[in-house]
């Protein structure tokens, strides 16, 4: 084919320009470290790397959420641990006062300390976190959850909902438990049923050794043992109004079996004395402590008061043990959530590392390859420039003199 002057010129020039473009491309890759400058460079890779960026961003956020959830669970746990220590101290104080050698004045000093302990638990229950939220208020987090009414009863005014935080795609975890679950919803008695002395009892009889023998036979009916004569009692179901057993003979310390439970009555009940057996109910930690405080301050002027004293303090110990059990199981729940958080955080971190690797593989330049390309293209450019000058110097006119 016939070659023309402009063709020679533009061919050489285009060669130089194309090489300049290539050099520029690799130079930019090396400078930015990014393989994809715009989506057209690698459309699939660009879309994928956007997706990966989104997922990595979400994982980062999940990590933040998990840290916060863990922090808040720890805050609750430490408040609960404080409550348990306080309850332990109250338990010791009750045991101390059970010793009848203490005078009523001494017992009232101890009761004063129990009152202080009550305040301590009250303050722990109304604890706030760094965001100024009450940690045991459920989701009514900016109002004080525990208040004392005129009668001295502690009331829960928070709600029973729990805030959840998202720690993985579609997975949330409760960041704690509501104050109702922790401090209020604690069963009294032995967790199934509760015994009590009639308010008007005059004898020294008291109920001991309550046990559930057959949970399937147990009903939540309220029952009452009434002494109709010195050694005779009737068993009445107050819920149904039926007399379950009638004219039974009383033996001190012998087990009475009914309704799937056994209890024993000890001491000398007077005629008309009543012993009540009903289903366990919720009793707050505060009520348990306040009741113990009240019970231990009684002046033991009569044998029936002494009997009542020892019955009440035994019951208080039982309630405190149940509260401890309940708090332990709550701590176990919190611990389980912490574990779940930790394993989720580890999983998230693993996934992050993988995604980062894939993203980097998609987006990042292979420096070695890019730099060697750059070097090669620069050399080629130099060669093309020299060739350009050479070829342009070739002209017949140079020889026309």
């Amino acid at each position: 084919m016939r070659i023309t002057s402009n063709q020679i010129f533009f061919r050489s020039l285009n060669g130089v320009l194309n090489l300049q473009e290539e050099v520029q491309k690799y130079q930019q890759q090396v400078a930015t470290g990014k393989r994809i400058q715009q989506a057209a460079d690698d459309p699939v890779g660009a879309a994928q790397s956007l997706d990966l960026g989104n997922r990595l961003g979400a994982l980062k956020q999940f990590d933040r959420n998990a840290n916060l959830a863990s922090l808040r669970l720890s805050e609750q746990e430490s408040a609960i641990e404080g409550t348990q220590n306080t309850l332990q101290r109250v338990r010791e104080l009750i045991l101390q006062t059970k010793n009848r050698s203490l005078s009523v004045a001494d017992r009232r000093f101890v009761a004063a300390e129990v009152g202080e302990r009550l305040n301590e638990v009250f303050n722990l229950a109304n604890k706030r976190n760094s965001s100024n939220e009450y940690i045991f208020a459920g989701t009514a987090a900016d109002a004080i959850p525990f208040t004392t009414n005129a009668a001295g009863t502690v009331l829960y005014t928070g709600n029973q909902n729990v805030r959840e935080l998202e720690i993985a795609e579609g997975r949330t975890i409760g960041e704690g438990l509501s104050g109702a679950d922790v401090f209020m919803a604690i069963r009294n008695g032995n967790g199934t049923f509760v015994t009590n002395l009639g308010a008007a009892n005059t004898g020294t009889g008291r109920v001991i050794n309550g046990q559930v023998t057959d949970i399937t036979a147990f009903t939540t009916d309220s029952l009452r043992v009434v002494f109709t004569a010195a050694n005779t009692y009737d068993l009445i179901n107050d819920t149904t109004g039926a007399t379950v057993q009638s004219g039974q003979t009383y033996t001190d310390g012998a087990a009475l079996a009914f309704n799937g439970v056994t209890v024993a009555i000890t001491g000398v009940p007077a005629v008309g004395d009543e012993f009540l057996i009903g289903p366990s109910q919720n009793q707050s930690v505060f009520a348990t402590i306040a009741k113990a405080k009240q019970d231990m301050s009684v002046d033991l002027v009569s044998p029936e008061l002494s009997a009542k004293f020892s019955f009440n303090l035994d019951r208080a110990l039982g309630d405190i043990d149940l509260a401890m059990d309940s708090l332990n199981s709550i701590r176990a729940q919190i611990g389980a959530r912490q574990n779940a958080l930790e394993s989720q955080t580890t999983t998230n971190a693993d996934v992050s590392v993988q995604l980062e690797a894939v993203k980097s593989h998609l987006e990042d330049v292979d420096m070695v390859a890019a730099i060697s390309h750059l070097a090669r293209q620069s050399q080629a450019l130099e060669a093309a420039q020299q060739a350009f000058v050479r070829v342009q110097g070739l002209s017949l006119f140079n020889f026309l003199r």
Partner: protein
Amino acid sequence: MPGAFDIGVSALLASQRQLSTTSHNIANINTEGYSRQKVSLVQRPPEFVGAGFLGKGVDVSAITRSADQFLNAQLRNSAAGEARAALFGQMTAQVDAVLSDGTFGPAIERYFSTLQDVNNDPSSAPAREVFLSAAKTLTNRFQDLDARFSVLNESVNQGIARRVTQINSFTSALASLNRDITQALGVGQGQPPNDLLDQRDHLLQEMSRVVSLSTLEQPDGAVSVFIGNGQLLVNGSTSVPLVAIANSLDSARTEVGLTSGGVTTAISDAITNGEFAGLLAFRDEILDPSRNAIGRLAATLSLTMNAQHRAGLDLKGALGGDLFAFGSTTVNGAPSNAGTVTLALDPAALGNLTDSDYRLVHNGTDFILTRLTDGSQQTLSGAGPFAVDGLTITVGSAPAAGDQYLLQPSRYLARGMTTQITDPLKLALANPVKSSADLTNIGSAQIRAPQILDATAAGLLTPAQLVFATPPTSFQINGAGPLIPYTSGANIDLNGWRIQITGTPNAGDTFRIDPNTNGRGDNRNGLALSNLRSTEILVGGTASYQDSYSQLVGRVGARGQQAQISRDALRVQLQNAEASRDAVSAVNLDEEAANLIRFQQAFQAAAQIIQVTNETFNALIQAVR
């Protein structure tokens, strides 16, 4: 000796012509469209002198240019193809740059991450402020994307208008060249006016970059120029101007129009190559679908977020309002339409929304709906409203045959996207109702957190109380009405909410569902909002918000890449066509230099003839003296 003298003179003249043509070639080495010229020589008719025929010298028979009309036409086609691909690629790269500038992805990511921060701390005013500002940034990004698409649309319109002007100046120049050439052919008695022909070829070449054309040579030397499917632009010495007109249904679209018989019609669809075609294809295939996709995303995000936000309770104890507002659907009706239609998005079928525009035509009995991206048609019979592709088309006043509409459901949806909430307290992150078990309950039954089924239910915020009867195998609501049998874990639906009670209740146990007043730390509705991030809502329920955006980026990127590849291929084709044309027509300086020497030598030799003749004549004179 007059014979030799005349021959010498004829040779001198011929060489002069050749030298000046060579000079002309050298002078025009850089003139675009120039075809090298050459002088054709012919011997003069010989004279019979008895002993034979005696040569009488040389004549210049013609000065011709080296041009091949076939190669020129091929070059024009290649140029039109390359120009189309180059402009298409260049415009697509602009959309690519808009979409992958790395501001939208982070904005939507930040919207959701700040939402989670608020969920972590719902009563925190600063966290709420930060979320609202992230929401505002997101809406700004939508508006900004739309604004940049709008600018691109405007530049397409201007590009069309500018090229219409350009073509008009080409066609009028061609018309006057046609006249000059016809005249010159007459004056030159059939000798070609090479330089005028070159100019005309060059103009055609330039014009074919803008619009693909075909030519037809007339016997008088003029060429007729056609574009599209046979629209005549230049006929002899007259030209027909193109006009830039607004689309008859959508004034935001400039089309190429041609006036014929007083009627201007759009001929955009007939143009298949050249920069015009590149611009038009870019608008139809890249710009409008991208803008529609962004509009669709804006509306889907707004509607789904709003619906969920309305199902929450704000810090003032009221149900949430709209979080976002967005633009409206567009119906462009022809002025001659007898009836009216309206268009709305169907919030229950958002997944069916496409990124297409639609044409709706009434044929006298039914509406025919054409989806413009794939050309699929369907017949809408009856009075409507019609539910198609996530849209609800409602017929207003009665249609007549020939009524036509251009429906642009999602074109302008992103334009008006704004955040509707400025007061951080009005962010509705809490569940509207809460459940609780009375602390005096004896049984072990527990109540789960309520779910909201219908945030618009009238009694949603009315407190309800579930009390178990004796025996506790059933319960009663609010102390009245029938006893409802109890099954552990079964759904209990009332007033727009749903709860479950599990475990063993005791007679008289009470569960309450109350409005979630003072639930300031509640984030359940916030979590539901946050869940929307990964919910696959768009594109038939296969793509989340972010998925649909990355799909768009990927699609535009792929088209951009394809455009680059085809532009490169067409560029090679163009270079080959140029090389073929240049091989025939362009100037080679070395060749001209050689010719210069050759013709100079011929000239010198001819001058020698004159001298020899002169000396011979002088010798004769001397001999006679």
